C-alpha cells in the first residue's frame, strides 16, 4: 500500500524530469545551452516578485479549467468545451462588471456567479444532447467552442460597444484585483481569484468524495450500466456533471475578466485556457489536489517560458517544442510507469 502511494508520487515526478531532459536534448541539438535555458525559465517564473505574481495569476484560471475538465472526466465525460465555457464566463463577468452599479459586496459576487452560470449554460446544452439523444459530447463541445467564441465577439462589437474592439473596463466594485497584491508583487496582475480557485478545488473535492452527488457522478463515470441498475438517474448525472464542469470553466473566464484583464477584447482565436485545462486535468489525475499541482506546473512553464527567448536566446518556437515535450512526458505517465516497473523487475 505505502509502496504504491510512493510509486504514484514518483511517476509524475519522473515524468517531469524526463520531459525536462528531452527538452534539454532538443536545446542541445539546436545549439542552445539547456542550463541557461532552464535558468531563464526558472527566473521567468520566480525571478522576482513580479514574475511570481504573474505565475500565480496564470495558475488561477488553470486550476479552474483543470477542475472543470476533471469534474466532467469523473462522470466519464470529455469536456473539450471548457474553452467556450471560459469565453462565456469571461463575457458574462465583464458584462455585469461594466453594466451595473452596485456596492462591491453585491457587484463582485454577482459578476462571479453570473460567469459561472454562463459557463454552466454553455455546458448544459452538450450535456442534455448527450443525455437525451446520445450525441457525443466531444463533437458538440468542440462546436460550442466556436459558437461561444464568435458569439462573444459579436456581442462585444454590437451589444456591449459600438463596433469597438474591446469592452470598457469593469467598475472597481467588480474587480478582483487589489492594490495591495499589485504593489506587493511590483505591479503584477495577481489578484484575489487564486483564493476562489483554491476554494473551488476544495468544493470539488468535497462534492466528489463526501456527497451522494459525487458518489453518483463517480459511479456513472465508471460504469453507466451498474449505475442505472442501482437506480441512479444516469441522464440527470450527465447533465449535472456538465453543468458543474461548465460553471468551473465559467469561473475561470471570470478570473480573466474581473482579474487579469478587467475587460474583454475581441478574441482573434481561442484563449487556450480550456484546452490547457485538459492537460492539467490529465496530469492531475482528475483529483482536486492533483489539478492544483498540475496547474502550478503549467503556470510556471507558461510564464517562465516567455523569458527563454530574451534571456537565453532560445527561439519561442523551440520553447513551444520543449514545453510540449515536458507536457507529453508528463501526460504519458503510464509509459513512465511501465519503464519504472521494468527497472524494478530488472533490479530484482
Amino acid at each position, binding site marked *: 500500500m505505502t509502496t504504491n502511494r510512493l510509486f504514484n508520487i514518483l511517476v509524475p515526478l519522473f515524468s517531469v524530469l524526463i520531459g525536462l531532459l528531452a527538452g534539454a536534448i532538443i536545446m542541445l541539438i539546436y545549439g542552445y545551452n539547456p542550463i541557461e535555458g532552464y535558468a531563464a525559465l526558472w527566473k521567468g517564473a520566480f525571478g522576482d516578485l513580479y*514574475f511570481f505574481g*504573474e505565475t500565480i495569476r496564470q495558475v488561477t484560471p488553470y486550476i479552474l479549467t483543470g477542475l472543470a475538465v476533471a469534474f466532467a472526466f469523473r462522470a466519464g465525460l470529455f469536456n473539450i468545451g471548457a474553452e467556450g465555457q471560459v469565453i462565456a464566463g469571461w463575457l458574462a463577468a465583464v458584462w455585469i462588471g461594466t453594466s451595473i452599479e452596485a456596492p462591491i459586496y453585491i457587484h463582485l459576487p454577482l459578476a462571479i456567479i453570473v460567469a459561472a452560470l454562463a459557463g454552466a449554460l454553455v455546458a448544459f446544452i452538450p450535456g442534455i444532447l448527450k443525455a437525451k439523444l446520445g450525441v457525443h459530447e466531444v463533437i458538440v463541445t468542440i462546436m460550442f467552442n466556436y459558437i461561444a467564441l464568435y458569439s462573444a465577439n459579436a456581442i462585444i462589437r454590437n451589444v456591449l460597444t459600438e*463596433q469597438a*474592439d474591446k469592452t470598457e473596463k469593469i467598475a472597481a466594485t467588480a474587480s478582483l484585483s487589489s492594490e495591495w497584491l499589485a504593489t506587493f508583487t511590483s505591479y503584477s496582475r495577481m489578484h484575489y481569484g487564486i483564493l476562489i480557485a483554491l476554494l473551488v478545488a476544495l468544493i470539488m473535492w468535497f462534492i466528489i468524495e463526501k456527497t451522494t452527488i459525487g458518489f453518483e457522478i463517480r459511479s456513472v463515470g465508471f460504469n453507466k450500466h451498474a449505475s442505472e441498475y442501482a437506480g441512479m438517474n444516469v441522464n440527470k448525472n450527465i447533465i449535472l456533471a456538465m453543468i458543474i464542469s461548465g460553471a468551473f470553466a465559467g469561473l475561470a473566464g471570470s478570473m480573466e475578466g474581473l482579474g487579469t484583464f478587467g475587460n474583454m477584447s*475581441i478574441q482573434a*482565436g481561442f484563449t*487556450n485556457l480550456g484546452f490547457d485545462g485538459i492537460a492539467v486535468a490529465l496530469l492531475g489525475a482528475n483529483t482536486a489536489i492533483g489539478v492544483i499541482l498540475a496547474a502550478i506546473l503549467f503556470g510556471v512553464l507558461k510564464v517562465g517560458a516567455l523569458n527563454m527567448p530574451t534571456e537565453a536566446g532560445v527561439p519561442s518556437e523551440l520553447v513551444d517544442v520543449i514545453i510540449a515535450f515536458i507536457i*507529453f512526458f508528463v501526460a504519458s505517465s*503510464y509509459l513512465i510507469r511501465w519503464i519504472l516497473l521494468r527497472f524494478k523487475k530488472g533490479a530484482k
Partner: protein
Amino acid sequence: MRKNKLLLSILLLFVFSMFLVACGGANDDKKETNDADNTNDEATEDNATEDSGDFSVAMVTDTGGIDDKSFNQSAWEGLEAWGEEHGLEKGAAGYDYAQSEDDSDYLPNFTRLVKNDFNIIFGIGFLLEDAVADIAEQNPDNYFAIVDTVVDAPNVASITFAEHEGSFLAGVAAAMKTKTNKVGFLGGVDSDLINKFEVGFVAGAKSVNPDIEVQIQYAEDFNAVDKGKLIASNMYNSDIDVIYHAAGNTGNGVFAEAKDIKRNDPDREIWVIGVDRDQHEEGLNEDKSASVTLTSMIKRVDISVHEVTNAAMAGEFPGGETIVFGLEDEGVSVAETNEDAFTEDIRSAVAEWEEKIKNGELDVPKSRAELKEFEEGL
C-alpha cells in the same frame, strides 16, 4: 485504457505537429532574413553607421510573431535596420523582441523588457493597447510606443497610419484591373482599424467606377490561413477577380488559393492585393515567372519604428503625441513591383488620385459613416 491510448496518440500527434511547425518556422526565418537584408541595404544607403551610445530598443509582438509576413515582421525589419545603422546586435544591449503566445502575455513581456532596461519598447498592433497603457502608467520614466492605435500617456508615442489613403489607391488599382467589375475585400477582425482599410478600398474602387461591386468579408481571425483560403475560394468562384486582404496571416490563404487556381488554369486572370508589406513574393508561382500579387498596400511600419527610435535616441521622443504616417511621408504607399500586372495606365491613374489626396483636393473617408456620405457625393 483505450481512452488513455487515444489521448496519448493525440498528444503524440500534437508534439510532432509542433515539430513541423517549428521546422517550418525555421525555414521561413531564413527566407525572411534575406528579405530583411534587402531592405537593410536600402536603409543603410543614405545613413552612415552612427554610434548609438548604449541605447537599446525592443518590441512586443501580438500572437503573430515576427515571421507573420506582415505587420510584426515589418516592424522587426525596422528594428533590424536601425540596429544595422548603429552597428548593434540582437539582444539586451541592442534590439530585441518578445513574442506573445496569447493576450495575457503582453504585460509580462513588457515588464520583462522594462526590467532588461530597454530604452524604448514598442507595442506592435492595436491588440496591445491596454497593455501599453498599463505598463506606461506603471513605469512613468520609461518610453513606450504603440503602433496602429492611440494611447494617451505622456511617455507613449502613438504611431498610426493613413491606411484609408493607401487602401484608396489599392481600390483604384483594383477597379482599373477588374474585368468582371467585381472585387473583394477580406478583413481580419471587424474593427475600427480594419474598417479604415475596407472603407478606403471601397471609396477608391467606386471613385473609378461607381457601379463596381465590392464584396466585403471578415475572417474574424488574423491567424487562420485555412479560413482565408476558403473565403478566397468562394470569392473567386463568384466572379470576383481581385481580392484585397487586410487580414495578416489569414491573408496568406488568399495567396495560396489564387496560386492554386492559377496552377490549374494559368490563363485565368485573378489578382491579390497584399497588405502591410510588399507581398509580391507571396504571390510568385513555382518558377517565379509571374506573381498573382497585383500590388500591395504598404504600411511602412519599419520606417515608422525606425524614425521614432532615432528621434528618441536624439532626445526628441514624441511622448504623448500621435504621429500619423500617410501618403506624404511615404508612411503608406502602393507597391509597383509587379510590372507585368501593374500596367502603365494603372500606374498613372494611381498617381493622379495620389496627387489629389496629397494636395487636399480629396478627403478619403475613414469610417463606414463617412463612406456613405462619400458615395452619395459621387
